[in-house]
């Protein structure tokens, strides 16, 4: 037996949730599907491949004050930002849910990033299994299935005009609308099949190709914009600086990317990673070598956003297979 909810009831449930807490869900905006705060269930998009930007923005916002400096009568007090409101994050894909789990590894490692931790703790993730795969998708190569229920609190899988509902965690169970859920005999459809990239052994190959001229050649066409990092569900690099507005001082954290020109430039101008090739290489080493060294998993979930949005088609799948070839060459 499985539990199901009809499309209509799903929308009424979401409408109910919108009345109770913040609901972030996919919606159409300027020709894109983006996760946005929903004010009406009818704006929520249920059928989409994946959103243009990853869900990380809800947990690690583009910009967020870590604290505000309160200056009264010459006294200074630091007021930390806190996350108080409960949020339901609806429509996260299995790849992106893994992305959040990957960002957890560095950010929740002791001492935990308090603000990020609050964002995560205050949010319930409702996952949506993929019924079809985009041409850029390769989650299976990263050990994720298109209907993988790990890393979410509730998983929904579309069957005809209904959704199979699985409560994965206690937090998810608590959120389920028992009145809208029915028992059923339906079976989940088979997950779509995807193109595969050979990732086996890549972590071991990486250290040996660091000096390969490959990187500077690849960087020839790289524009060194931040698109790949900003659309990526696992990139978490950030910058911290102060922001003054009308006399109020905030210490702000914002996204930053290892591709941006000033990323490693020290005060005084010295930049140990000044060449384009070195910067691009850092991106792939972080994902395919350093991150797995530290946390045991490749820092990529195969969502394919960087493949789709890179203006010059630097395709991580191709890079992985090129590295495999380079590694094989250097062995013989």
């Amino acid at each position: 037996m499985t539990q199901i909810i009809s499309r209509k009831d799903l929308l009424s449930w979401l409408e109910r949730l919108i009345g109770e807490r913040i609901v972030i869900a996919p919606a159409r905006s300027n020709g894109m599907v983006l996760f946005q705060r929903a004010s009406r269930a009818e704006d929520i998009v249920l059928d989409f491949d994946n959103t243009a930007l990853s869900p990380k923005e809800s947990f690690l916002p583009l910009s967020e004050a870590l604290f505000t400096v309160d200056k009264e009568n010459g006294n200074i007090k630091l007021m930390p930002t806190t996350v108080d409101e409960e949020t339901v994050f609806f429509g996260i894909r299995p790849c992106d849910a893994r992305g959040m789990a990957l960002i957890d590894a560095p950010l929740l490692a002791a001492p935990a990033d308090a603000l990020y931790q609050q964002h995560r703790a205050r949010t319930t993730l409702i996952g949506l299994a993929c019924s079809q795969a985009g041409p850029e998708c390769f989650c299976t190569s990263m050990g994720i299935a298109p209907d993988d229920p790990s890393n979410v609190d509730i998983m929904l899988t579309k069957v005809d005009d209904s959704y199979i509902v699985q409560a994965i965690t206690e937090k998810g169970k608590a959120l389920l609308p028992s009145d809208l859920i029915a028992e059923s005999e339906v079976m989940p459809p088979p997950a779509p099949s995807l193109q595969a990239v050979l990732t086996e052994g890549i972590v071991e190959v990486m250290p040996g190709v660091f000096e390969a001229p490959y990187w500077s050649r690849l960087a020839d066409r790289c524009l060194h914009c931040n698109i790949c990092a900003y659309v990526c569900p696992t990139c978490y690099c950030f910058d911290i600086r102060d922001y003054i507005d009308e006399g109020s001082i905030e210490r702000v954290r914002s996204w930053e990317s290892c591709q941006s020109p000033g990323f490693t430039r020290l005060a005084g101008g010295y930049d140990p990673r000044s060449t384009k090739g070195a910067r691009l290489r850092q991106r792939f080493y972080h994902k395919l070598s350093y991150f797995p060294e530290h946390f045991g998993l490749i820092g990529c979930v195969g969502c394919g956003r960087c493949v789709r949005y890179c203006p010059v088609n630097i395709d991580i799948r191709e890079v992985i297979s090129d590295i495999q070839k380079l590694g094989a060459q250097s062995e013989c």
Partner: protein
Amino acid sequence: MQEGLDLMPQIRDKARELLTSGAVDCVIGYERASDGLTARPLFAYEPNDVDKLIFDQTCAHNLARFLVNKRDSTVAIVAKPCDSRAINLLLAEKQIQRERVYVIGVVCPGIVEATWGQIGDKLQARCQLCREHTPLVYDFLVGEPPAEEPPAEPYHDVAEMEAKSAAEKHSFWAEQFARCIRCYACRQACPGCYCTECFAEQLDPLWVGIRIAPMENEVWHIIRAFHLAGRCIACNECERVCPVNIPLSLLNRKLEKDVLELFGFRSGLSAEAVPPLATFKKEERLGMSE
């Protein structure tokens, strides 16, 4: 896409000749992207790489953007007419040396709307407004120059925007800029944005604060556009690469229109032309009182 467009053999032959003779270190052209449909930049260093070169209506990138990176070597570049205007701009601004760039000019039928994995059948908006289908600077020309038919109303969308009330304009742009994630792809794709230190990265004075937020984004977009006033060559790469669909051409083309009206100038038409904000005429009034 247009059928029978086969400029590839000529481009490849020329590229092979240049690389084999050692006349250039590298040929910057296009190759097929990983979707098997669209194009991406190719840097061919060996005669063998030449067979990867393609040219068709998916070759959107303005390759002139890469010339400043290759200042220290001699390169050949496959250039569409808009790219050729960028080459002229870079020459006029003394960023590259003419003798170090071999231009393989390509007569351009217009580039189609495409994203990775998907090709449309419509020409890009900028191509519908194109006035030059033949490159303005080249050492070797591929294709037959067609007769030029200037577009009837190149600035109708700009005029529509101008006609709106101040409040409408303000809220339109506020909404557009609010969406920006400051990936700076618009800058990085632009052949005219070659400053070693962009104003957006200066810390003292600090023009653009760390917050990725509407007010900071507004400074970025307005000043980015204005720094290209009289310099933008309308390749529209900035808009094409924008991951959040900000209509940057609507900014760029307002300035293009006003530059044309005020100074009678279009950028990149020659390698000698001085950008209009870098010069003046004593006798002009430009609508200002004495």
